[in-house]
């Protein structure tokens, strides 16, 4: 209760909510692009991890968070290329391909991290992004410091979500993506290059998930640890379904999951006598519950998971 009435406490809680939501938002909104083009992106988890790893290596090698950002995009982008080759060109089951990438990323990042950073899984503290308060806006009571005293990646997210929405619903490329996800043959006969659009969508999608991983490393913990994505990519998958394959919906759903994650941390802290694992389940329970409630009510893109072949009858 004191949470709601004490502005400092409330602000702190909202800050935690946002912080925990951001990797999920990046991945879920990215996932929207891929899935609207008709390609399942189960590899969001692996892309977050790849992004985190790339961010750590880049920051370590170049001594700058921007170097980290560049390598994060590169690593996640490579995962995207892999998914596109397997799932779009070769027509391998996209779910299986996605799972394979997740497992590959898990092993590969752990292995390479030990090679690069030495024998320990946990790296030394890396250079990262630090909060930049926006004058005026950050002085708004309660929400000001939560929303406008953040680092570069958070501001990037603020721009990215509306930008993705605009691209999807206001540009020819977005129209192509939406058409291809529902009926690729129609887009093909209208002269749209289905495979090229899907490649772009998948790679962009994975790179955005990679930004989520970069955020964890460069803005939150400043180290790389094995499997630090910890299921966030899967929560993002739930968020994009809950958000009905719409970038704004995915944003709101990701915030909802972030809220429950923050809540469970708070509950853990307040009730040390209860085993913490009970509370840790909360965001995952909420995601299952949300999907159960939505069962049968949401319609995924009609052609999702199918390979497109021009000559096929």
């Amino acid at each position, binding site marked *: 209760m004191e949470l709601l009435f004490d502005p400092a406490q409330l602000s702190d809680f909202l800050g935690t909510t946002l912080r925990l939501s951001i990797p999920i938002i990046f991945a879920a909104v990215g996932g929207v692009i891929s899935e609207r083009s008709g390609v399942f992106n189960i590899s969001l988890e692996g892309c977050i991890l790849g992004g985190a790893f790339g961010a750590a290596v880049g920051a370590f090698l170049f001594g700058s968070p921007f170097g980290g950002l560049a390598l994060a995009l590169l690593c996640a982008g490579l995962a995207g290329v892999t998914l596109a080759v397997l799932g779009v060109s070769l027509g391998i089951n996209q779910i299986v391909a996605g799972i394979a990438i997740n497992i590959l990323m898990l092993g590969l990042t752990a292995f390479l991290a030990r090679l690069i950073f030495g024998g320990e899984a946990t790296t030394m503290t890396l250079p990262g992004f630090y909060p930049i308060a926006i004058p005026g806006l950050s002085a708004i009571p309660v929400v000001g410091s939560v929303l406008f005293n953040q680092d570069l990646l958070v501001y990037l997210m603020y721009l990215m979500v509306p930008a993705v929405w605009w691209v999807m619903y*206001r540009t*020819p490329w977005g129209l*192509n993506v939406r*058409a291809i996800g*529902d*009926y690729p043959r*129609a887009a093909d006969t209208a*002269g749209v*290059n289905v495979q090229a659009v899907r490649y772009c969508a998948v790679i962009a999608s994975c790179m955005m998930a990679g930004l989520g991983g970069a955020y964890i490393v460069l803005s939150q913990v400043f180290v790389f640890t094995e499997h630090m994505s910890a299921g966030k990519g899967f929560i993002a998958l739930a968020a994009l379904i809950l958000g009905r394959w719409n970038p704004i919906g995915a944003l709101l759903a990701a915030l909802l999951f972030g809220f429950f994650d923050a809540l469970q941390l708070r509950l853990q802290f307040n009730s040390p006598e209860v085993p913490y694992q009970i509370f840790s389940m909360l965001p995952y329970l909420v995601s299952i519950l949300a999907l159960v409630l939505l069962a049968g009510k949401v319609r995924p893109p009609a052609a999702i998971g199918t390979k497109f072949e021009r000559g096929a009858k």
Partner: protein
Amino acid sequence: MDSYLRLAGITKLFGDFKALDDVNIDVAEATVHAILGENGAGKTTLMNIIYGLYQPEQGDIFLKGCKVAIPTPRDAIHMGIGMIHQHFMLVDTLTVTENVILGLEGLGANIKLKEHEEKIAALSQDFGFQVDPKAEIWKLPMGMRQRVEILKVLYRDASLLILDEPTSVLAPNEITSFLDGLDRLRASGKTVLFITHKLEEVMSAGDRITVMRHGKITAHTDVQHTNATEMARLMVGRDVVLDLERPKVDQGEVVLEVAAANATDERGLHALKDVSLTIREGEILGIAGVDGNGQAELAEVITGMRALDSGRILVRGEDISHKTVAQRRHQHRMGYVPEDRHGTGLVLDFPVTKNCMLRDYDQAPFARHSVIQAAAVAERAEQWVEKYDVRLRSVHQQARFLSGGNQQKVIFAREVEFGPDILVVMQPCKGLDVGAIEAVQNTIIAQKKAGKAILYISTELEDILGVCDRIGVMCHGEITGVISPEEATAERVGMLMAGIKETA
């Protein structure tokens, strides 16, 4: 007249199969040129080559006298070729305008939707199409969707329009306005190439006709210099017997009764509205109508694959509305030949043997102590293959590798041999060649002679007229009329198919 499009020696192979064999066609500018042929004659393959979807193994394409290569649909569009596919290439969830501008070049970074909506509305007005540019496709009737397809190619300034079986999805009254539309297109200088297997349309709309059979051209002629009988002969390669024997059978008691049935489809729409019908022993009731007017739902509620919202299904007076599919089959002797041979009728990856036992896999002698008895299953499959003249290499062959006609024979064997009282058949002749159609219809007539009650659902009026004793017509989920084959003139059925009920 100048030649607009010339095809010279086009040959296309699918594996070993020659889909097109040395095809030569000349299409004059500002004419309506019809390509006539049976299913599988290679018409669609030819159109897909002109539109850049397939590449020919041999032959050249000339456009306005210049030799061209058409590697992709995009190139075809650039050359002013527009295609209206048999299955509409429209994205259901998008609006008319979004579908029309999809793939258009030079849209800029930000689509000016308003501008395009106005231009499309104006274009639609020019051709008398009355299409609302803001409507979502899934809400539009088929005739309207076709106009959207035509607008799509007109919006790209196409001067050659290819229409693949344009009337197959239309109701008779929609066909009339479609043919008017063709006239307007020709008048505005467009060249139209349209594919069909329906003779009447060619005779009323075409200027020139090319007839195809088995991938080859069998004739080129002007509409004025020919007649329907000659066309039919050229199409099929022999004289067609248009009348089937319709034996008189004494009708017994009522077997199947559907009473005020209401049901909902997948989209939550009211698909069956107070449908009532009865079928007697030895009677075939035909259900005609344009595809998607509740016929599928009717078959499904009768066979137990879809729940009723209200109403009842009775077999010999007993209410079976809440019985399962298996109960209806085994207790009430109901056989079902579904419309979708591949998805519902067969398991394509299973061998023919297992497809034969899909409905009684758990019964002796095919299963003993829950173990399938392969020998008994194979033995019966062999008997059926023999009896129904199914052409295959082995009963252990996957159903996928059988031709459509042979697949249908397997289904008929399974659904007829267990001794049904009631047989529900839906679109049994769809996509079959003439020989297979004859076999299917003879099986149905034999079942009628054996005193079965048969519900025969088809969108092909000729099929229905050939075998049915009474014909019900469906429109928008209602039965708009039940008439005898003698009363079933094209006009009368057309009115009923369009939902115009007769006042007594």
